[in-house]
Structure formats: C-alpha cells, structure tokens
C-alpha cells in the first residue's frame, strides 16, 4: 500500500511536469521594466487570486515603479513620506470607468485596493505631478516582469495554445500567439 502511494505521487509529479512549460524571451526597444503575461483562454480557468502586494510612496516616488500582479490581487498602498500624497489612477487600460481615487492618508498608514479588472493602471499623485507608477494586472497567474536587460521568464504555464501580451510604459501592447509545450521562446 505504501509503495502504491509513492507510485501515485511520482506519477502525478511526472504528469505535472509534462503538462507545464515555460515561456521566456526578451522585450527589446524601450528601456525600463516591461510586463509579459498570458491572456485568458476560453475554456481555461484559474483559481481566484488571494495574493497581496505593496506599493509605497517614498521620497516623492512610487516604489516600485512597475508592479505586476494577478487579477484579484489586493494591493496595499503605503505612505512612507512626511508629506501627504493623493494616489489615483484615471483609468485602467483606457477604461475611465475603472479609474479610482484612493484619497490622502498620513505617513505610516496605508490603504488597500483589490484589482478585479485586468489591464494597466497609471498611478498618479494629484499633488506631485512628476510621480508616476504602473500597476499591471494580469488576467492569469502567468506573468513576469522583465529584468534590466529586458529578459523575462514565465514558469509553470500549462501546455496549450495562448496569446502572450507584452506591456511596456509608453508603448502599445504587443500580443503574439504561443504554443506551450515544454520551453517556449518568444521575443517582443
């Protein structure tokens, strides 16, 4: 019986390895961080996210400048500055109905917001117009931010056919089809 159990676990692991792949590549062109994510595919669902992430305001800057999260993630917005800010985003991917004003809160306190809609929210401060950041909401759990060289790697993507989108500050989104079966490579 014990041996049977071990065999099932090994088999299940082997199956999982066989069904999950990796998408990697490079986002070239513009400098700065980009986010690459897998678009939703009809018939494929993923469990709702209960993750948390943090966006801080420190030294008249949003930190980090680009925050990539999964749809459904709750973001904690902090204020580490001795001055007040007013964080808001006028839209998410151009949809002004999804714009939201978090208001103003003093140093040491925070506010939270759950991002239920995918897209990119351009985070601004009403008081300090030079401040900006982006919260990029991926519709699936399969996303990654690029490193300093523009390289990215999305792991544990189930085998199948997908559309992969690259978001970059100041550029239009680029989407490309990809078939995942083991390691896949796609550049933007």
């Amino acid at each position: 019986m014990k041996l049977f159990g071990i065999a099932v676990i090994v088999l299940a692991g082997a199956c999982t390895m066989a069904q999950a792949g990796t998408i990697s590549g490079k986002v070239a062109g513009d400098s700065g961080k980009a986010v690459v994510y897998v678009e939703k595919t009809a018939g494929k669902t993923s469990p709702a996210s209960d993750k948390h992430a943090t966006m801080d305001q420190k030294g008249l800057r949003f930190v980090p400048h680009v925050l990539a999260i999964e749809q459904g993630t709750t973001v904690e917005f902090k204020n580490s500055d001795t001055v007040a800010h007013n964080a808001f985003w006028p839209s998410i991917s151009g949809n002004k109905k999804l714009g939201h004003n978090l208001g103003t809160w003093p140093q040491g306190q925070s506010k939270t917001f759950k991002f239920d809609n995918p897209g990119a929210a351009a985070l601004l401060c009403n008081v300090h117009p030079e401040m900006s950041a982006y919260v990029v909401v991926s519709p699936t759990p399969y996303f990654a931010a690029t490193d300093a060289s523009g390289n990215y790697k999305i792991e544990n993507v189930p085998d199948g056919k997908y559309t992969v989108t690259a978001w970059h500050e100041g550029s239009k989104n680029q989407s490309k089809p990809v078939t995942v079966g083991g390691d896949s490579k796609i550049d933007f």
Partner: protein
Amino acid sequence: MTLTNKVKLLAALFSLIVISSQFASAIPAFSRQYQTSCATCHSNFPKLNDFGKAFKDAGFKFPEGDETFLKLPPVLLGAPAQKEQWPHTIWPGTIPNMPPIGLRMNNFFQVTGRRRNDYNTNLQPAGTPPGTVGGFPFIPRTDFSTGLFSIFTAGNFGSDIAFWVDDDISVGGQNAAGGLGDAYLKFHNIGRFLRMPKDSLALRVGRFELDLPFSQARSHNISPYDIYSEANIGAMNALVPLQQNVNNSFSFAGAANGLEFSGGHQYGGYHYSLAIVNQNTSGSAQGDNTSLFVPSPTGGAGGGIGFASDSNFKDLYGRLSYRFNLERDSASRNAIQAAGPTGPQDHTSLNLGSFYFYGKSVQRFAGTLAGGPAVVSAHEPFYRLGGDFNFNHRALNVYGLYMVGHDRNLLPIDSAGALIVLPLTPGALPAGFLSSRSATFSGGFVQADYRVLPWVVGIMRWDSVKSSADRINGLAVAENTPFAVPFRATRNRFTPGVQFLVHANIKASFEYQIRPEQTTTIFVDPATGLLVSSSPFRTNTATAGLEFVY
C-alpha cells in the same frame, strides 16, 4: 484697429507664444535637487502655495525628513561626528551636491493706446514732434521687448542655515546694466539657543526684499503694484503757496541692506518680521558713493564698492500678521496643507497683517558760511503704515493692502526767519528749518486670482495711488515714463489679466492695463497759478509676457 484685427493679432500672438514655448523644456533650481515639479511649491510660479511657504520657512528644505527627499545627497563639509570635537574643529556643515542654480527669462509684447504720444506732445514746445525735444521718447503702437534674464541660487548649508542670491544679468533691454536682487544668509531657528519654540526666531543678514505682505520681487504679475513704487516727493513747484522740502526716493520696490529677525509661519498662525536696514533716501547709487579719503568696504581710498547708506540713521521695518486657517477639522487646520477631496490643497484661510516703516530722510545743502564751506542738513522723519488681508478659498484668492506715506516737511528759512523759496540758490545756505505741512500719499491695491484650471489663472487688480504732490509737480515732466504718472492727484488702474502655464516652468501672461480719468493738455491756471490739465486721455496698454525658468 478694428475689433476683428485685434482678435487676429491676439490669436497670432498666442499661437506664436505656444509654438515657441514648445521648444523649451527645463527644470528649475530646487526641482533638480528633489526631482520634483515646480507645482510642489508653486501654484502659479513664482507665487507660492502653502507647501512652498513652509519650504521657505524651513530654510529652503522640506519641513520634515528633508534628507529622504533629496535625490542628490549634499556634500559633507565635515562628518557629523565632528561636532563632538568642537571647539577643536570647525562645526560641520553641508553644501548642495550640485550648485542649485536657476535661470529666469521673460519677454514682452505691448500694444499701446492710440493717443499714446499726446502726453509727450503736450509737454514739449509747440510744433515739435514727439521724440525730438527733451528726451521724451516716441511711443510706438506695438513693441517687442526683453525683460529680465536673472540667475538665482538658493538652498541650505545644513544646520538651519539657508542662502539666496539672485541677480538680474540683463534688465531693461540690450546692453543695460543688471542688478543684484536679494543676497542673504538666513539663520533659521536660532531661538533654540534661548529655549524659544521651534521656528520662532530667525536671523537674516544681507540684502533682501523687506517682508512685504505681497512680494514685488517675486510677483506673478507682469506690472508692479503701483503703491510699492511710490516715492514721496513733496510739492516743489514754486507756484505752490506752501512748498514742500521733501525729496525722499525710498519706496518698497527696492531691496534693502541690513538684518532682520523673523519668526512664525506663512502657512498658518503668526508671523513677524523686524528689520534694521540701511537708509538711502537720496537714491544715490552705491557705486557713486565713494570717497577719495575714506575707504569703503573692500576698497582703498577712492575705490571699493562704495557706501550703500547715505546717513547714520538706520531705518526700521516691522510687520506682524496672523493667518487663520478655517478648516473645521483641527488636524487639517494645523497641517501645512489642508486635506482636500483630491489631495492636499491650500488652506481656506484669512490672513490679516499690518506693517510699519520708519526712517529719516536727509536733505543736505552745501554752501558757504562765515566760517567757510559748510553743509546744513534737514533730517525729516518719515513713515509708511499699512494693513493687508489675504483670503483664500479653493480656487479663489483675494488679497490687497492699503497704506499711507507721511514725510515731515522742513522748509528752509533765512536768518530773519522767513521762508526761502525752493529751490535754493546754489551755494546759499539756510539759517534753519521750519516744520510745515507734511508730504503725504496713500493708496493700495486689491487683486483677485481665480484658478480656472490648474494651468489657467484669471486675474483682476485695482491699483490706486493718491498724491497731490504728484499732480502739482507734474512728475512725468522730469521722467521718461509718461505712462507712469498721470496728471491727477489720484490715479487708478484696473488690470484684468490671464496667465497660462504652458508647462510647469513656462508661463504666458496677458494684461490689459486700463487707466481711467487721466488727463492731458497742461496749462497754468491764471487764477491760481497752478498747473492744471484737461482733455481726458487714456494710456491703456495691452501687454503679453512669456517667461520661463530652468
């Protein structure tokens, strides 16, 4: 010019401004250090918002946690731990990482009323065209001109020591000499040595604009406040039954040399300023005030930078104001900025203040007495007294001041005690002086700024100056500014305007200066012997300004 043409002209001008502005992109002085927008401290540069006032009050730094905002860390002039070694070492300080230098440039375009040369014409001999006699200029219908190009640097050296220097490299057109504006060190929070509350006592030393209710040197308007430029020149006209021996060139428009104690905050609560400054009521330039025998600072005999003061007396200036922030929530009321629906904003507030300046104007007469060459002086005390208000509610800011000027008038008398008709015969000295009718003036302004959009501000201002001496003297006769002094005891000016922030550091400004009730055609009234005038005359002007800082 028809209305259609006027509209076309304004449209073309605005297009020119917008197009030319697009080539400029820059960052002002503090923006470099903190990498933040001008809008952090200015609502409509150089006008400060509440945070900007707090930044200035704190010594050109963030009121709290300044080091966390500096993107360029200051250079240490000694490790902080060196303080433990004092007095066996120099007290450590800092200097800004990069010299915090800013530059400001502006250009103007003016359209002047049709009868713009009438005033000059009436002051010249009959038959001579304008611009040919007496140096009176021909006033063109339209004129492009450069304003100032100034360099300024400001910041702090740590230890609550702030500095500011600004200098007009070029003013008033090509090849004109520039001039030093403010140049001072300010020692903030020195009250801590006396266990006084924080920010209750600071010392400023150098050259600075007096702590006026509303800054002229850093005004966001194109045209200056008329009352600030008012010097008190008594009725010198010999046709006046009772002349005034008052020739005081002092005005609030210029900077003063001296020192100042101040305290409080500009963004809420009390604020005060007590200044002791040089007197120079004769208006003589420092460079001309040199002696062959007595070295001035930095110089040997006959050289150096000259003496800035023309008297032993030092003038005194005091200002006290209190600002009531009107938010109901105490936390918001006491904060540097009030809490607003879209973030921190300027407080809804009412600021009330008063100011007083006391000095002594010196009239000197050189001549010969029995004992040889001599100088006889008349020391004429004078004061300027005024009150001011400043009300702010969201996008609306209404403010103004009223002030009076008063100079004691000491008329020269001969040995028999009879009044001597002015001007004195060169070389003749009075035996004494007799106090007579004082020379006075009054006036002020009220201005409203309304922020239509964050980048559009509408302005309406009313200036008024009342001085009978100005009318009697016909001051414009002696000055190349025919539009500055109309021929009436009271001169009013209405100035509607609008300003556009093309970028946070580029501003296009428009003003239409309306001067009603001015008159010309000057003649001597045979009944009274006084100069009088007739024929209404308006020297209205439309001025456009374009300025940028970087």
